[in-house]
C-alpha cells in the first residue's frame, strides 16, 4: 500500500483535521439556521479530504489561496477555530476583526492569503505568490484551491498559462463538487474531467478520488515536490461532492425547486471522506477508542469556539473606518 510510508501520527493528524472541518461546518450550518450568524455561509461538508490532504502536503511557510467555501482550507492550513468562528459572528476577536466574515477569512502569518468572494480570483493570486518565491529565490510553494465553476473563468486559463510558461511553484487543486452554485457542471463545461484542461497548458493533470485523503495527500506531495524542484505547476482534480446546498438555508429562497437528485446526494454520502478513512484504518491502524477520542476532543474545541465567539465583543462601530492604508 502506498500509504505505508505515511506515519500513523500524520494519518491521525489528517483525521483530526477532517473531523474539525466536519464538526466546524456542521455547527456553522446549525447556528446559521438558528439565526445566530449574520450574512450567509457556504459550508464544505463532504469535501474534507481535498482540503486536508492538499494542505497536509505543505509547510507552514507555503501559501494557500481559498474560495467562498473556504473554512475547511483554512482549518487544514492551521487556522484556529476560535478566531475563525468569531469572524463568522462578526466579532472583534475574529481573524479579520469582523471586517471580512466567512468569505474573506485570512491569516497571512500562516500563509493563508485569504478566502475569496470572487470565483476564480484565487488563481492569479496563488500564481503571484509562487512568482514571488521564484523572483526572490526562496522555496515556498503556493497551493490554489478552486472549484469546478472557477475552471470556466478566464483567470483559470490565464493563470495556468503564466504558471506553466514560467515554471512557477504552484499546485492548482480543483475541487470538483459537480455544481457551480445551482447549475450542474456538466451542463456548462466543455470537458468531463477538468484535469484534461492541463494538457492545453502543458502541465500534468491528475484526476483524484477527492474523498480519499490519502490519495489526495500523496498526489499533492508529488505535485509540491515537482513545484519545489522548479519543474512547474500541476493541475489536480479532486472529484468530490458538497452535501449541503450552495449556501446554507437556500431552501428558503429556492422553495421546492431542486437542482440535485436526492439519490445522487445519498450515493455521495456513502462515500463520506471520514467514513472512507475509518473503514480503511480502523481497527488495523487505529482502535475505535482512538477515533472516538479524536471526535470528542474536536467536539469540545468546537463548543469552546462557539462560546468564545458568542462571548466576544463586537468591534466599535467607528472601527469601520480603520485598516484602510498601511502607514509603515
Amino acid at each position, binding site marked *: 500500500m502506498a500509504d505505508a510510508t505515511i506515519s500513523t501520527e500524520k494519518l491521525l493528524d489528517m483525521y483530526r483535521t477532517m473531523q474539525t472541518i466536519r464538526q466546524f461546518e456542521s455547527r456553522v450550518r446549525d447556528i446559521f439556521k438558528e439565526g445566530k450568524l449574520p450574512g450567509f455561509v457556504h459550508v464544505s461538508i463532504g469535501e474534507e479530504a481535498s482540503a486536508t490532504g492538499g494542505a497536509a502536503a505543505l509547510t507552514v511557510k507555503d501559501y494557500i489561496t481559498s474560495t467562498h467555501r473556504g473554512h475547511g482550507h483554512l482549518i487544514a492550513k492551521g487556522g484556529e477555530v476560535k478566531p475563525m468562528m468569531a469572524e463568522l459572528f462578526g466579532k472583534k476577536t475574529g481573524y479579520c476583526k469582523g471586517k471580512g466574515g466567512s468569505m474573506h477569512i*485570512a491569516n497571512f502569518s500562516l500563509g493563508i492569503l*485569504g478566502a475569496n*468572494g470572487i470565483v476564480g480570483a484565487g488563481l492569479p493570486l496563488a500564481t*503571484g505568490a509562487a512568482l514571488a518565491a521564484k523572483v526572490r529565490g526562496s522555496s515556498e510553494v503556493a497551493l490554489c484551491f478552486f472549484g469546478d465553476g472557477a475552471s470556466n473563468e*478566464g*483567470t483559470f486559463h*490565464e*493563470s495556468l498559462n*503564466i504558471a506553466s510558461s514560467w515554471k512557477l511553484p504552484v499546485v492548482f487543486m480543483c475541487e470538483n463538487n459537480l455544481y457551480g452554485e445551482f447549475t450542474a457542471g456538466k451542463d456548462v463545461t466543455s470537458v468531463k474531467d477538468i484535469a484534461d484542461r492541463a494538457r492545453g497548458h502543458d502541465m500534468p493533470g491528475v484526476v483524484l478520488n477527492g474523498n480519499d485523503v490519502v490519495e489526495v495527500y500523496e498526489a499533492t506531495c508529488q505535485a509540491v515536490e515537482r513545484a519545489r524542484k522548479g519543474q512547474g505547476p500541476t493541475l489536480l482534480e479532486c472529484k468530490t461532492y458538497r452535501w449541503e446546498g450552495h449556501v446554507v438555508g437556500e431552501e428558503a429562497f429556492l422553495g421546492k425547486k431542486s437542482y440535485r437528485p436526492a439519490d445522487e446526494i445519498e450515493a455521495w454520502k456513502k462515500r463520506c471522506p471520514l467514513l472512507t478513512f475509518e473503514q480503511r484504518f480502523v481497527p488495523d491502524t487505529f482502535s475505535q477508542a482512538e477515533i472516538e477520542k479524536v471526535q470528542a476532543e474536536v467536539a469540545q474545541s468546537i463548543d469552546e469556539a462557539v462560546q468564545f465567539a458568542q462571548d466576544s465583543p463586537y468591534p466599535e462601530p467607528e472601527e469601520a473606518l480603520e485598516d*484602510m492604508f498601511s502607514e509603515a
Partner: protein
Amino acid sequence: MREINFIQAINEALAEELRLDPKIFMIGIDIWVGAFGATSGLTDEFGKERILNAPISEAGYAGAGVGAAMAGMRPIVEIEFASFFYCCWDQVCNQAAKLRYMSGGQAAIPITFRSVCGAIGSAAAQHSETVYSQFMSVPGLKIVVPSGPRDMKGLLKSAIRDNNPVLVFEHLKLGRTKEEVPDEDSVIPLGQAEVKREGTDVTIVAIGFMVSQALKAAKSLEQDGISAEVVDPRTLIPLDEETILASVAKTHKVLVVDEAHLRCGAAAEIAAVIADKGFDNLDAPIKRLTTPDVPVPFSPPLEKFVLPDDKKIVSAVKELLG
C-alpha cells in the same frame, strides 16, 4: 540643473528604485522592448528575472502582481493603456484595493500600477480614455497623475515606496516635455498639491496633461489683464484639499479642468469638496471643463472638439469672470 523628458523621468525613477530594493520587480506587456521607452535598458541592468515580459493577459499578470505583493514582494505592474484596466478590474478593485481592509489590516499590498492614460491623437476610444475617476470610487487605492518630468519622477518613486496599491497615470502627450529634474533622490510625497503659477483673479485646478494647457491659458489670459492661479493636485487620492481651498479663498472663483469625463469625474469630486468646504469664499458658481460624456472619437476634428485645451480654458475663464 540638467533637463530630462517625461519618459526619461519614468525610466530613472524605475531604475533608481530597482537598485535600492531587491523586493521590487516589474511585470508588464512588451516591457523588454519598452515600446514607449519608459523601460528601456532595464533588462540590461536588472535581468529578465526581475523585468518580466508578461503575456497579453491582464487579469492573469495583474492578479499575479497582487499575489506577489501579498507574499512579500513589491511589484510594479504596467498596464499598457489605461482602458486595458477593464480587463483586470477585479484584480485591482476587488483584490488589491480590498484585501488589506477585509483582512482586518493584516496584509500590506505594496503594488504600483503604471499606465498610459489619456488621448494621444486618433487612438480612438479604447486607447484614449482617462479612467482614474472610476478608480476614485474604489476605497483602498491611491491615485497619482503627474503633469511633468519632475513630478513624474518624484511621485513615481513615492508610489513605489508606498505600502499600498498606487495607480500612476502617465500621459504620453507629455512624453517629450523636458524639465529640470534634480539628479539626487528627489522624492515628492503623495498628497501634496502644487501651485504651478500664482494669480489673484481665478483659480484653475488642472489635472495631469491639463496642467500644461492651463499654464498656456494663464499666459494668454495675462494679455487680457486676468491673473490666473494654476493648482495641480498631483495626486487625486490622497487629495490635498487644503492647497486647493487656500487658492479659492484667495481668488474666489474656480475652474476645474480635467481630461476625464464630466459625470462623476475627478472634476466633480474636486468641485464638491470646494462646495462643501469653501462655499463662503466663492463669488461665482464652480465651473468644470472636461471631456463630455462621449467615448473619445477617432477622427482628428472630432477628437479636438471633445478634448479640453488651452483655448477652451481661456473661454471658460472669461465666461466665469463674466
